[in-house]
């Protein structure tokens, strides 16, 4: 029987077994907060379609094992050729443990990478899953780009989980600050393997100082039996620019939250996303942008291809607060539903509390165009090939928007490989 709550005593024991360091205070504070408020359930509006119960269940099984130290995988365990082909300075977090060697190896002028435990952190109770992350955090990354500095090579964060035990849980955390007038290109890559059940919970806190720019690519290609929740919280300084491009290929239950806070005028936020979901996959993307001041722009386009009994959610919320004049917010979500059993819940939400704004949104859910399919077939392309060509073109729109060059080819490959597997499964 699946439980909706963590076994708090066991959780407390697991936290107590973590090293006593500069993170102890926030672990305890977060635990207390979690204990009081719990995790969201399907009764919460934002969690209507995504049930955390199976993930809590994995967590409880892991706690039962009393095995707080999962063996650390080194990067040689990572046999992901696609990730390896992406040019970046890669930092490694495996089974929730930061690989110190990868930190030491990173030598870029103007970039400082440290363990989170090197500094005192202040707890922020912005989200229940952030509480869970802080409470069970072994350690995380802290990346700082100095002011007036543009990095020369993208920084990569490779997150790998090897599920060796029956059930395991990992917490991934990176706090990133991009200094004034600086640029950061970052690629976040999530992979997993192993026979056991796994749940990874990731938290990224990103701060852009004035006139800074971050180009951020998130690629999630976990084992189809593993699960992930992830929250990326971004604060935009004056005249800063943020471009987030997210790709979800793998996983069984995936929930991503992207929250962008525009507290200073002049900034521009772009978020693009692509989810390709097949048999038994559940992929939920929630985005939220708070326009607290204007002028500022936010633009988002998410696309999805669903086959078999895939279930996806896209919820894009834009809140234009009182006084945020000169806001321009755009949202788009397009889906190809290639099976009767697949389901998408697409919901744009605009809340506008000021007059001088320009907002638009559009969502579409459709099938492949029959005329185009026939045309391709009369050119000798078989039906799977024709579907592959049309879905790839649909998905490629997002790849073509990538703000960082180095993953482009690898992503194009991932997209067509994933789509062909999804489409072949349909034919069988």
């Amino acid at each position: 029987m699946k439980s909706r709550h963590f076994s708090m005593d066991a959780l407390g024991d697991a936290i107590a077994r973590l090293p006593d360091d500069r993170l102890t205070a926030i672990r305890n504070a977060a635990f207390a907060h979690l204990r009081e408020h719990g995790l969201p359930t399907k009764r919460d509006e934002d969690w209507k379609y995504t049930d955390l119960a199976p993930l809590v269940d994995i967590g409880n099984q892991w706690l039962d094992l009393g095995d707080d130290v999962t063996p650390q995988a080194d990067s040689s365990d990572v046999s992901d050729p696609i990730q390896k082909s992406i040019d970046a300075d890669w930092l490694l977090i495996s089974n929730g443990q930061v690989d110190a060697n990868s930190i030491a190896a990173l030598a870029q002028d103007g970039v400082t990478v440290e363990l989170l435990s090197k500094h005192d952190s202040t707890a922020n109770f912005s989200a229940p899953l952030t509480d869970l992350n802080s409470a069970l955090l072994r350690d995380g990354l802290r990346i700082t780009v100095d002011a007036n500095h543009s990095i020369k090579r993208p920084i990569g964060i490779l997150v790998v989980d090897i599920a060796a035990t029956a059930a395991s849980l990992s917490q991934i955390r990176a706090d990133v600050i991009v200094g004034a007038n600086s640029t950061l290109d970052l690629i976040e890559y999530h992979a997993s393997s192993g026979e056991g059940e796994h749940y990874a919970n990731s938290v990224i806190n990103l701060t852009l100082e004035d006139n800074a720019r971050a180009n951020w690519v998130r690629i999630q290609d976990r084992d189809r039996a593993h699960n992930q929740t992830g929250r990326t919280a971004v604060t935009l300084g004056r005249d800063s620019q943020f471009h987030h491009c997210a790709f979800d290929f793998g996983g069984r239950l995936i929930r991503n939250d992207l929250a962008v806070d525009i507290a200073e005028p002049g900034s521009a936020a772009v978020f693009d996303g692509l989810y390709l979901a097949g048999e038994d996959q559940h992929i939920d993307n929630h985005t939220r942008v708070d326009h607290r001041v204007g002028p500022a722009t936010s633009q988002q386009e998410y696309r999805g291809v669903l086959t078999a009994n895939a279930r996806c959610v896209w919820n894009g919320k834009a809140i234009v607060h009182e006084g945020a004049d000169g806001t321009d917010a755009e949202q788009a979500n397009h889906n190809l539903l290639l099976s009767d059993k697949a389901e998408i819940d697409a919901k744009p939400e605009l809340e506008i509390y000021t007059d001088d704004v320009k907002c638009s949104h559009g969502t579409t859910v459709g099938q492949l165009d029959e005329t185009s399919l026939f045309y391709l077939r009369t050119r000798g392309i078989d039906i799977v090939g024709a579907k592959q060509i049309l879905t790839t073109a649909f998905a490629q729109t997002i790849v073509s928007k990538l703000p960082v060059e180095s993953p482009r080819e690898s992503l194009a490959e991932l997209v067509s490989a994933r789509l062909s597997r999804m489409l072949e499964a349909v034919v069988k």
Partner: protein
Amino acid sequence: MLEINNLKATIGTTEILRGLSLSVKAGEVHAIMGPNGSGKSTLAQVIAGHADYEVTDGTVTYKGSNLLELEPEERAREGIFLSFQYPVEIAGVNNAYLLKASMNAKRKHQGLEEIDAFEFLKLAKEKMALLGMDPKFLNRGVNEGFSGGEKKRNEILQMAMLEPSLAILDETDSGLDIDALRAVAEGVNSLRTPERAIILVTHYQRLLDYIEPDFVHVLSEGRIVRSGDKSLALQLEEKGYDWVREAATG
């Protein structure tokens, strides 16, 4: 090459082809004319394998086998090519990519290796020069934003690259300027060999000045009501379709 016997085809509940017979031998060029809505495109689409049309009676034999049993892609690989009356725009799919994929699908079927990238490009540029097409069209989306005439030329480019045994051109001449018409005609004539056959669907005698047909047929209300040599096209130009209809019924 192609034997159509008493073909009847419906879409929904409407019967469009009502007992059509036509015999096309290798080396021949047939022109099919006929009023709007008479079923010319339907015939072309049925031969290409469009699933919306249901064949309710009759037979279609291609190179000695039952064509109606084959999927559209199998028909294409066996050498049937349809130049669409309304070529389809496929946004985001590279024109060169589709050309290469089509050629390779056919080559694979023939047990040949994939075409070499360099060979492909050379061949494509050669054919494009012949058709007066800018090589830039290779890197655009398939028919994406092409003008009417550019789409028609692109169909002929595909045909020239695929070298079909049986080419069906559905009003490929409509919307072409004089130079394009000449270029397209040259493209078609260069395919005219003793092993191949061509069916031209057209409304205009003008095309037939450039591509001389061996036979001209008039399609009316889903049936071929008259067949003749190229002089039939001239008579039609002069007298209109009523003349054939009357002759057919009278």
